C-alpha cells in the first residue's frame, strides 16, 4: 500500500500520506471553495448545540501505554501542573457559565468542581481545571487514564477513561466531538497540582519575558537593568563595588560549575524532570502526598500564564512561559548559613552540597531558600529507613500504594547505584548530578587530560530535546556555558539577582514571537490570572 521503502521514508519525513487524488487537485494551491467550506464548518460549531470536546494525549501518559509508570504519573502536566489524574480543562469563560467562582479558595484548595459531561449517550463525571487561553467552548480531556491494575499498580484507579468520547468515523478515530452538554454537579474532587498560582505577578526579578517586537526595539533592557541594579549599590558603596557584599568572596580555584537555561528553547515537556528522577533516585510520593505539597521533584518546571491586565477577556492569553527551576547553587546560599549541623555547605566547585546522613531535618534550609527548591522526606518514601513501622501504614497516615510498589525488591532494581536513597526526615535537592561530574573527572584523570568541556553532563541536560540546558565549567573561558552566556548577554538574567545570593544558574529570557510592543519601563506584560480576588491582584509597580 505504501509502495517502496523510499515512499515509506518520505511519508515519515513529511508526516502525511498524500493521496494521489489530492496531488492531482494541485497540492498547495488556493481553493476558495475549500476555505468557504471550512469557514462554514467552523461557524457551524459555534452555532451548534453544546460544546466541543477534545480528547488529547498528555505528554507524560500518551495513549495510556505508559500509565503504569509512576514517574510519568507523577510528572506534572506542563500546562495544568496536575499529577495523577485526568480532568476536564475548561476556559475561564466557560467556568463563569458553569457558575464556578474563581476566588482565592478556588485557587488554594485542591477541591475542584466536578462536571457532568454528556455526549450522546455517554455521561462522565470529571473534575475540571480552569485554564485561561482555552477556546471558550472547548473542553479537553486527556486520554490514557482509567486503566485497571493489569496495566500496573500505578495506573489502577487513576482518572477516567476518555476513550469513551472518541468515535470511529469509518476511516479515522475522531478525537473531538461536538454537541457536548456540561453541567456543574456541585460536588468537588481533589486534584493534586504542584503549582497553583498561575501568574508571576509582574516580578521581573523572577522571570524575564518579552515580545519579539519589543526586544527588537530595545534589545538592551535586561543588561541595562542589571547594570542599574549594580549601579545603585555601587553609588552608595563608596565606589568599592565588589557587588556590595560586606564580606570578601572565597577563592574558587579549579572548577566552578554553572548552568544556563534558555527559556526560549524550553517547551516544558518535562523530560528533564523524569530524567532527574531516574538519575537521582528521586522518590515518587503518590497523589495523596502531592496533594499535601510533599512532592519531591528536585527539578520542576514553573509555568506562568501571561495575559494583559488591561484586557477584559482572561482567555485572551498572551503566552505561556516555562521556567525550569532547580537548586540555583548560590555562592551566597541562604540555606547553607542556617543549617545547625553543617549538613549543607558549599563545595570547592561551587556546588551547594548536602550530606544526607548528617541531616537531622530541621527544614530551616528549605524555609530560607528563596527558590523553594529543597525537598524534604516527610515520610519513608524510599524504604531506606530501618524503621519497620514506616512501611506498616495500618494506623495512621496512609501512603499511596505506589510508594510501596516503588519499594518492592524488583522495582528497586531501577535505582541508580551511584546515588544514595534518602531516608525519612532528610532534606534533599539538586546536586548538579554530582555523581556524573565525579565520573567525568575520573575519566579525565585516567585519560590524563584536562576535563574536556561537555564531558560532564547533568541528567536534565542530557534529556533536554531542545538543548535548552547548557552546563559546564565557567572557569573555562572556552566552555559552551561561557559562550552561551556571552553570546546572549541581552537575554541573560539571574533569578532574584537583587538578593545577591549569586546563583550559578543563569537564564535566557523568553522572547515571544509576536509583533506586539509592550510599553513600560521594564517591559512586563501586565499579568493577571484567573482565580485571584481583585484585592490580591498584582500591583502596577513598574
Amino acid at each position, binding site marked *: 500500500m505504501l509502495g517502496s521503502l523510499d515512499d515509506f521514508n518520505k511519508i515519515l519525513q513529511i508526516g502525511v500520506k498524500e493521496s494521489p487524488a489530492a496531488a492531482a487537485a494541485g497540492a498547495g494551491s488556493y481553493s476558495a471553495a475549500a476555505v468557504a467550506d471550512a469557514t462554514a464548518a467552523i461557524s457551524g460549531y459555534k452555532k451548534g448545540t453544546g460544546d466541543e470536546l477534545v480528547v488529547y494525549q498528555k505528554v507524560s501518559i500518551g495513549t495510556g501505554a505508559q500509565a503504569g509508570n509512576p514517574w510519568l504519573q507523577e510528572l506534572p502536566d506542563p500546562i495544568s501542573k496536575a499529577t495523577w489524574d485526568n480532568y476536564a480543562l475548561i476556559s475561564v469563560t466557560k467556568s463563569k457559565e458553569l457558575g464556578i467562582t474563581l476566588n482565592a479558595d478556588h485557587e488554594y484548595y485542591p477541591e475542584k468542581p466536578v462536571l457532568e459531561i454528556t455526549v450522546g449517550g455517554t455521561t462522565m463525571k470529571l473534575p475540571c481545571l480552569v485554564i485561561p487561553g482555552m477556546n471558550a467552548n472547548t473542553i479537553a480531556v486527556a486520554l490514557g487514564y482509567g486503566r485497571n491494575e493489569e496495566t500496573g499498580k500505578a495506573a489502577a484507579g487513576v482518572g477516567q477513561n476518555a476513550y469513551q468520547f472518541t468515535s470511529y468515523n469509518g476511516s479515522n478515530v475522531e478525537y473531538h466531538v461536538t454537541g457536548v452538554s456540561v453541567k456543574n454537579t456541585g460536588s468537588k474532587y481533589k486534584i493534586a497540582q504542584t503549582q497553583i498560582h498561575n501568574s508571576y505577578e509582574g516580578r521581573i526579578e523572577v522571570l524575564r519575558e518579552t515580545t519579539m517586537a519589543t526586544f527588537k526595539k530595545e534589545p538592551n533592557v535586561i543588561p541595562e537593568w542589571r547594570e542599574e541594579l549594580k549601579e545603585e549599590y555601587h553609588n552608595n558603596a563608596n565606589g568599592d563595588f565588589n557587588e556590595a*557584599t560586606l*564580606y570578601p568572596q*572565597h577563592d574558587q580555584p579549579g572548577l566552578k560549575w554553572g548552568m544556563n537555561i534558555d527559556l526560549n528553547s524550553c517547551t516544558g515537556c518535562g523530560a528533564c524532570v523524569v530524567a532527574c528522577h531516574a538519575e537521582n533516585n528521586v522518590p515518587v510520593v503518590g497523589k495523596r502526598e502531592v496533594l499535601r505539597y510533599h512532592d519531591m521533584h528536585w527539578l520542576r518546571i514553573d509555568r506562568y500564564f501571561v495575559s494583559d491586565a488591561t484586557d477584559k477577556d482572561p482567555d485572551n492569553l498572551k503566552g505561556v512561559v516555562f521556567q525550569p527551576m532547580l537548586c540555583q547553587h548560590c555562592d*551566597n*546560599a541562604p540555606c*547553607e*548559613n542556617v543549617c545547625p549541623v553543617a549538613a549543607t555547605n*558549599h563545595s570547592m566547585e561551587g556546588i551547594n552540597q548536602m550530606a544526607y546522613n548528617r541531616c537531622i531535618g530541621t527544614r530551616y534550609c528549605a524555609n530560607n531558600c528563596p527558590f523553594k527548591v529543597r525537598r524534604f522526606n516527610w515520610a519513608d518514601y524510599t524504604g531506606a529507613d530501618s524503621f519497620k513501622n514506616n512501611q506498616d501504614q495500618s494506623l495512621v497516615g496512609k501512603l499511596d500504594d505506589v510508594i510501596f510498589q516503588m519499594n518492592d525488591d524488583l522495582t528497586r532494581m531501577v535505582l541508580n547505584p551511584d546515588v544514595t536513597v534518602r531516608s525519612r526526615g532528610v532534606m534533599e535537592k539538586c546536586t548538579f548530578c554530582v555523581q556524573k561530574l565525579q565520573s567525568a573527572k575520573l575519566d579525565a584523570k585516567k585519560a590524563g587530560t584536562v576535563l574536556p568541556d561537555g564531558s560532564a553532563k547533568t541528567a536534565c541536560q542530557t534529556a533536554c530535546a531542545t538543548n535548552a540546558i547548557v552546563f559546564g565549567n565557567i572557569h573555562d573561558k572556552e566552555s559552551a556555558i561561557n559562550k552561551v552566556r556571552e553570546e546572549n548577554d541581552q537575554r541573560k538574567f539571574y533569578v532574584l539577582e537583587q538578593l545577591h545570593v*549569586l546563583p550559578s544558574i543563569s537564564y535566557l529570557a523568553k522572547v515571544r514571537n509576536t509583533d506586539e510592543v509592550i510599553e513600560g519601563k521594564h517591559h512586563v506584560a501586565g499579568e493577571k490570572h484567573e482565580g485571584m480576588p481583585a484585592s490580591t491582584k498584582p500591583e502596577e509597580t513598574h
Partner: protein
Amino acid sequence: MAVKKFVTGCFKDEEVLFPAVKKTRRAGYKIHDVFTPFPIHGLDKAMGLRDTSLHTAGFIYGISGTATAVGFITWALTIDWRLNFGGKPFFSLPAWIPITFELTVLFAAVGMVLTFCYLCQLAPFVRKDHFNPRSTDDTFVMALECTDKTNDGEAVSFLQGLGAEEVKVEYRETGWWIGRYDSEKKRFEKTGEAAAAQS
C-alpha cells in the same frame, strides 16, 4: 568539724538584734554566727565579716566562658575544618557573638553557683546543726562560741540583757555531715567524739 560549746540567744526583731550584735562584739565575745530567716542588710558588716569575692569569681568564670567560645569556634571553623557556608568568611565573628555571649553567661552562672555551694557547703543530703528550727521562720539566733575563757553564765545573762530570749548553753557540731533530717543519726558518725566533747 568539731563539736563545740555554744551560748545561743533568740531575737524576735532585727532592730533589737543589730545593737546586740555590736555590743556583743564590743564585749569581746566571739560570735560564731547569726542565723536569720531572711537576709539583713548590714548585718555582715556589723558582725565584721569581710565582703564576699563571689563577684570576682563570677567575672573570672565569665571571661573563661568568652575565651572558650571564641577560641573553640575559631579553631573549629578556621583551622580544624574550614567549610564555606553561604559564602561567609571562615572567620565569621559577628555570627559567633550569640554563642559567645551565651557561654559567658553559662560559665559565670554555673561557676558561681557551684562556688557558692562549695563555700557554704551546701549540697543535697548535707546536714548541719543550726541551733534553732525557728531561725528559718521568725527568729534571729545568735550563737556565741565558748572558748576556754568564756564564762557560760555571764554570757547567758549578757545575752538576756541584750533582749535575747530562750538563751541556752548547748553543744553543737560546727561542720557538716551527710545525714537525714528525720533522724539524729549521722551517716558516717565519728563514734565517741560527740560523747567525749559533751562529757
